[in-house]
C-alpha cells in the first residue's frame, strides 16, 4: 500500500531537480526551438527578416557550392585533425603510462592544463608562431628544410596545426581514462604465455585501448567540426568553416535565417556523429567490457 514516505520518495528527485529543469527548459530548449523556427523564415537583403515560412535556406545550404565547399572543408579538417590527434596522442599517453608516479603526474598536468586556458590565448600563440617571421619558419629555415618562409597563417595547414594543439588533450584524456581501467595483470598474462612484448602490445593491450581511442576520436571530431575561434583567427576571412560561416551570417550579412540554418545543420551533424558513433562503439565493445 502506498504510504506517505513512498509518495514523498517519488516526488523528491523531481523537487530537487526542479530549479535546474526550469532554467534549462526555459533557457535552453526555448532558444533552440526559436532558432529552428528562425531557419524557416525568409530573408531579404533590403528588408531583413520576412514573416513568411520557406525552405529556401535549407535548399541553399545543401545545393549552393559555396556552402557545400564549406561543409566539405569542415568535415575534411575535422577528419585530418582527428587522425593527427590519434597518431600523436595515443603514443604519448602510452609513454605517460609507463612513467614513474611523480613525472607522470607532472606531465599529465602539463598536457591537460591548456584545456583550462582560453582558446583565444592558445590561438594567439599559434598566430605568433606561424607567422612569416614566426619561430616555426625561423627554425625550418635554420634546419635547412626550406629556403624561404612558408606561408602558414591563413592556410588550412596552419588551422589544422593549431586545432591539433587544442584538441590533442581531449584525446589524451580519453585514452588515459581507458588505460586506468586496464588490468595490468592481463599484460603479464600475455607475457607469461610466451608473447614477446611487441606482440603483447599489439594483440593484448592495443585492442583494449580501442574504445578509448574511438570515443576520444568522436569528441575531437565533433569539437573540431564546431570550432570557431581557431579557424577564424588563423584561417582568416577567406577560409571559412561551418562555425565561422554561421557567425558571418549573423553578425555581418545579418541574414539570420540562413545563419540559423547553418547552425542547425551543424547541430544535427554533431548529434548524429556523437550519438551514432557512441552507440556503435558501445555495441561493438559491450561484450568485451562491462560498464
Amino acid at each position: 500500500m502506498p504510504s506517505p514516505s513512498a509518495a514523498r520518495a517519488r516526488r523528491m528527485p523531481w523537487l530537487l531537480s526542479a530549479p535546474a529543469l526550469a532554467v534549462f527548459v526555459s533557457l535552453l530548449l526555448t532558444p533552440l526551438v526559436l532558432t529552428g523556427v528562425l531557419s524557416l523564415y525568409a530573408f531579404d537583403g533590403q528588408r531583413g527578416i520576412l514573416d513568411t515560412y520557406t525552405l529556401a535556406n535549407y535548399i541553399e545550404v545543401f545545393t549552393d557550392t559555396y556552402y557545400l565547399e564549406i561543409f566539405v572543408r569542415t568535415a575534411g579538417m575535422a577528419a585530418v585533425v582527428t587522425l593527427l590527434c590519434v597518431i600523436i596522442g595515443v603514443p604519448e599517453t602510452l609513454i605517460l603510462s609507463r612513467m614513474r608516479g611523480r613525472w607522470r603526474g607532472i606531465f599529465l598536468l602539463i598536457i591537460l592544463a591548456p584545456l583550462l586556458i582560453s582558446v583565444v590565448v592558445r590561438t594567439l600563440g599559434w598566430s605568433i608562431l606561424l607567422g612569416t617571421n614566426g619561430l616555426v619558419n625561423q627554425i625550418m629555415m635554420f634546419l635547412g628544410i626550406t629556403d624561404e618562409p612558408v606561408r602558414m597563417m591563413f592556410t588550412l595547414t596552419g588551422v589544422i596545426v593549431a586545432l591539433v594543439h587544442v584538441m590533442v588533450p581531449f584525446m589524451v584524456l580519453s585514452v588515459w581514462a581507458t588505460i586506468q581501467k586496464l588490468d595490468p595483470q592481463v599484460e603479464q598474462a600475455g607475457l607469461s604465455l610466451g608473447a614477446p612484448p611487441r606482440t603483447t602490445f599489439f594483440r593484448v593491450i592495443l585492442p583494449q585501448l580501442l574504445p578509448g581511442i574511438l570515443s576520444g576520436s568522436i569528441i575531437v571530431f565533433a569539437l573540431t567540426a564546431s570550432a570557431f575561434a581557431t579557424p577564424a583567427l588563423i584561417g582568416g576571412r577567406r577560409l571559412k568553416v561551418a562555425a565561422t560561416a554561421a557567425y558571418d551570417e549573423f553578425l555581418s550579412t545579418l541574414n539570420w535565417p540562413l545563419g540559423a540554418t547553418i547552425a542547425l545543420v551543424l547541430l544535427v551533424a554533431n548529434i548524429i556523429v556523437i550519438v551514432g558513433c557512441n552507440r556503435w562503439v558501445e555495441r561493438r565493445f559491450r561484450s568485451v567490457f562491462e560498464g
Partner: protein
Amino acid sequence: MQRNGPLALIFHTLFITFILAPLVIIIVVSFTDKGYISMPTDGLSLRWYKAILDARELMSAFWFSLKLGLVASCTAMVLAIPAALAVTRYRFRGREAMIAFFMSPLMIPQVVLGAAFLRFFNIAGLSGSFFWLMTTHVILIVPYAMRMVIAAATGMNREIENAGLSLGASPWTVFYRITLPLLMAGIVGGWMLSFIQSFDELTMTIFVATPGTMTLPVAMYNHIAHTIDPLVTSVSAVLIFGTMLLTLLIERVVGLEKVLIGRG
C-alpha cells in the same frame, strides 16, 4: 610495465614542446620592448605589462569576466547540487533522460548556442543585460558542475547516510552534517571548473556580448582580429600564469584527472 626507451623519450620531448610552444612564445614576446610582435632580443622590458593598466577596455572586460564567472559558477552550483543528488540518490523513470538533458550543452556546438541565445534575447529584448548573459553562462557550465558533484556523490558510501538516520538524525540533518561535508571536495572542484569555463568562454559569448557586457575573451578576440600587438600577449601571459595557479589549486583539492574526466 616496460620503461620508456630513448625513442619514446625523444617523441615525448617533442610532444611536450609542441604543447608548450604557443604558451611559451606568448610569455617570451610579452617582454619585448618594441611596439610590435617581436622577440625581446634587445633586452626584456615590462613596458607591455605596464600598458595593461592603461588599457581601460581590457581591464574593465577583465573585471566583468571575473564578476560574471563568480556569479555564474555560484548559480550553477546551486542548481547542480540538488539535481545531482536527485539523479544519484533516487531511481525514477526518466532519470537517464534527465542526465542527458543536463549534459546536453556539452554536445551542442557553442556556435549553435550562441545563435540560439542571440535570437532569444533579440525577440525578448534581453540584450545587454548582465543577468541574462550570466544565465547563458550558467547553462553552459552546469554540465561541468553536475558531473563533478555526481562523481563525488556516487563515490560516497551510501550506508553512511543510513547510519546517520539510524542514530536519530532527520534527513535534512543528514544532508547538512554528513552528505554535504563529504561532497565538499567535489563541490569545490566543480565550482572551480565552472568558473574557469565561464571565464574562458568565447564562441558562444561572442554572439551575445554587447559593448556594455564585454567579457575578456571577446575583447581580446576583437583586438586580435584587427591587430596583433604585444598588449594581448602580456594580458595572455597574466592569464596563463593565473590559470597555472588555479590548476595547481584544483590538483591539490580534487585532482585534475577527476575534474576533467569526471571520474578519477
